[in-house]
């Protein structure tokens, strides 16, 4: 893999000759093949998706012959998938298509992706510093309950945000103490965090609300309308009126990227995750960095969690085990995105899109909608199996560090 600097030095023609380029172009074309058949383009003949899909597959095979086998076969598979989806789409009625693929799908995708973005960036901070965080699910669940509790008792959603962040950070601090100081196995510790969060939220929900639902009228996380955009034709519905945390998630991704890869602090964090001994030698306090990152991870995960209870879908209610695996999808997005904020964001959007599509399909085929929920997990399995590229965790991820 070339570094960015080396890539920039190469002339454009050389980069085009790189087998990776044809591979990625193939995958892009494959996506385009499926895209052709749905609104707004909506080709009604099967010819176009097939044609574009075949070109994608050919590009893939070309990539294989030039040595990038994994990427090439990935492009071939994507091409075939693109053709299949394209044919399926052209076969179904135009009315159905338009009601599924409209602007609200974009808004829903972004909304469903929000907790995943927070969760996966939370995971990135923790794991980049060398601490595996299986406990994301539990930290999100804590945010979901204590956030809505804070908003209910405090009277405003801002209090809810603060309470959620504080409780998430506190649980992460307990986990950090066991993972960093006591050097207990991090997978075992994370599992414990998930059980604890399940028990604590369930216990206090019954205790504080007497097993009744949380009363209506809790102050919810507000939507933020972009004045110029909100009335625009397609974009108004799509991104004109998103939740405050959804906007925050965009900022978070950029901030996480800048902090991790463009600042000295980020360099220290990554050093602790790749080679803590070396980091220690040059004077970085590995323990402080790891504590900071794990606590930050808990805070961010809890903010993702509060979106579930206090966001537009949650509507100020709490349900036992409300996260229902979203913490693990966030974990999957982190892995799928190769422990990078931008990659994790892309994966979260993809997973959010599959959930949004599942919601829309509910009307036409509840069974297909249920099966659609499997997509994130299957994709992650494929990703860790290394069929399309290979995901590489930080070298010291999960290894407790002992000062000498």
């Amino acid at each position, binding site marked *: 893999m070339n570094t960015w600097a080396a890539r920039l030095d190469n002339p454009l023609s050389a980069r085009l000759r790189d087998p990776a380029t044809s591979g990625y172009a193939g995958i892009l074309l494959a996506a385009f093949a499926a895209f052709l058949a749905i609104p707004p383009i909506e080709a009604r003949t099967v010819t176009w998706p097939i044609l574009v899909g075949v070109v994608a597959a050919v590009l893939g095979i070309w990539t294989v012959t030039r040595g990038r086998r994994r990427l090439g076969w990935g492009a071939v598979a994507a091409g075939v998938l693109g053709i299949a989806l394209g044919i399926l789409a052209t076969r179904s009625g135009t009315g159905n298509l338009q009601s599924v693929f409209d602007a609200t799908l974009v808004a829903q995708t972004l909304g469903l992706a929000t907790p995943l973005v927070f969760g996966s960036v939370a995971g990135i901070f923790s794991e980049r510093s060398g601490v595996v965080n*299986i406990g994301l699910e539990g930290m999100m669940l804590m945010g979901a309950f204590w956030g809505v509790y804070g908003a209910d008792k405090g009277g405003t959603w801002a209090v809810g945000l603060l309470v959620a962040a504080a409780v998430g950070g506190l649980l992460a601090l307990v986990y950090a103490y*066991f993972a960093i100081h*006591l*050097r*207990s*196995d991090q*997978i*075992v*510790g994370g*599992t*414990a*965090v*998930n*059980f*604890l*969060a*399940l*028990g*604590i939220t*369930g*216990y*206090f929900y*019954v*205790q504080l609300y007497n*097993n009744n639902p949380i009363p209506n009228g809790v102050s919810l996380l507000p939507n933020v309308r972009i004045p110029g955009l909100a009335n625009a034709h397609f974009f108004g519905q799509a991104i004109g009126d998103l939740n405050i945390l959804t906007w925050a998630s965009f900022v978070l991704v950029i901030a996480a990227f800048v902090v991790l890869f463009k600042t000295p602090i980020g360099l220290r964090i990554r050093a602790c995750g790749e080679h803590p001994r070396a980091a220690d030698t040059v004077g970085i306090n590995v323990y402080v960095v790891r504590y900071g990152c794990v606590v930050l991870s808990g805070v961010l995960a809890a903010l993702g969690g509060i979106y579930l209870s206090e966001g537009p879908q949650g509507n100020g209610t709490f349900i036992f*085990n409300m996260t*229902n*695996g979203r913490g*693990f*999808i966030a*974990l*999957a997005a982190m*892995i799928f995105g190769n422990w990078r904020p931008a990659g994790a964001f892309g994966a979260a959007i993809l997973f959010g899109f599959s959930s949004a599509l599942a919601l829309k399909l509910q009307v036409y085929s*509840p*069974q297909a909608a*249920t*099966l659609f*929920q*499997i997509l994130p*997990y*299957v994709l*992650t*399995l494929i990703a*860790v*199996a*290394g069929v399309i590229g290979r995901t590489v*965790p930080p070298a010291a991820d999960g*290894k407790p560090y*002992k000062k000498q």
Partner: protein
Amino acid sequence: MTDPGPSPSPEQAAQTGTLAAALAVKQRAGGFMVPLATVVLAFLMGGVVVAATQHSVHKALLAYQDIFRGAGLNWIFHPTTNILNIASYNLSQTLLQTTTLILTGLAVAFAFRCGMFNIGGQGQYFVGLIVANWLGVDLAGLSPLPHILLAIAAATLAGAAWAGIAGVLKATVGAHEVITTIMLNWIAIWVGEWLFGDGGPLQNSTQQFVPVSNNVAKSAQLPVFWGTQGFQGLDIGLFIALAALVAFWALINRTTLGYEVRAVGFNPDAAAYGGINVKKNLIRAMAISGAFAGLAGAVDMLGYLYRFGQLDIPVSQVGFLGIAVALLGRNTAIGTMLGALLFGGLLYGTTHGLNATSVIQPELAGNLTYIIQGLVVLFVGADVLILYVWNSRKRLRAQRLPKTAAAPEEAAA
């Protein structure tokens, strides 16, 4: 129990980093006392939560008494086989939960012995449950013995295959088994939602909008020996679980397979150097691990559940409880049994075992189980804490001796 090869000192083992090595340290570090201390500490902290929220220490003690009775453990004071007796009924229900937890605990323990963390017991359990339901319903008309054997064998194999995916991925491309088993868990959960859901292939044939499966045929139901068939009587699944415990012990300690699995768990590089096929053993261990969880699903389905619904899926936590059971039982057969009994009692005693006169309402107490479970796993995982206590004793002894005498003792420890 014999360790393969000369064992490293606890500190060395902790630093080589493999899970099995670290667990082996704990195995020697405190015998029976450490899990006991862990449980006491977890119950104490759970009690503090109850006392704080109920504003009374007395109430917390009474709550634990209720849970003890709810689990039917007061049966030992006046044993009777009469199932109408409330204590004996509760005990039979606790033993039903124990049966499941023994098997899901063994699933986690076996993988641990090979240095892997099988967090996917829940998924493998569901796969076993689904296959047992499918064959139990579809093969109606078979005579009981072949029907039961067939359904159990198929469910066990299905569990093995499901976990085997993680084993193969670990052996071939090095994918971390924790990640793959988590993903497989959720795939199994959603497949279950689809199968049992409205219009799903396994949904019942009479009520169209009830997302519950058909009952398994009479011929596939395990015989009940304590209680009433069809009313959650205690079935022979308990003996299957006990047999599995013996099989686990024999497999680990008395066969070449077990020796190889443990050797890979202690140190894969050393095992490979000694001529053991590491990849084969990783796949094998994961598959056997999944087989235990699949068997758990079959025993539950054919033993007392008979059917399963979409709404039961998110409630079921037995696969995850297996992690606590195995860790508490130190991945040994006898330890797993005791751990399963403890959590089986807790699981039933904090939920259905309680009634309106209980100090603590069942909805509250059920969550107490998860809190205690979380605390147990948290404390059991902190081996440095245990090591520190264990080694401080040794350090004290070493200080009293001259330096030259202490050195060889440390090397030998």
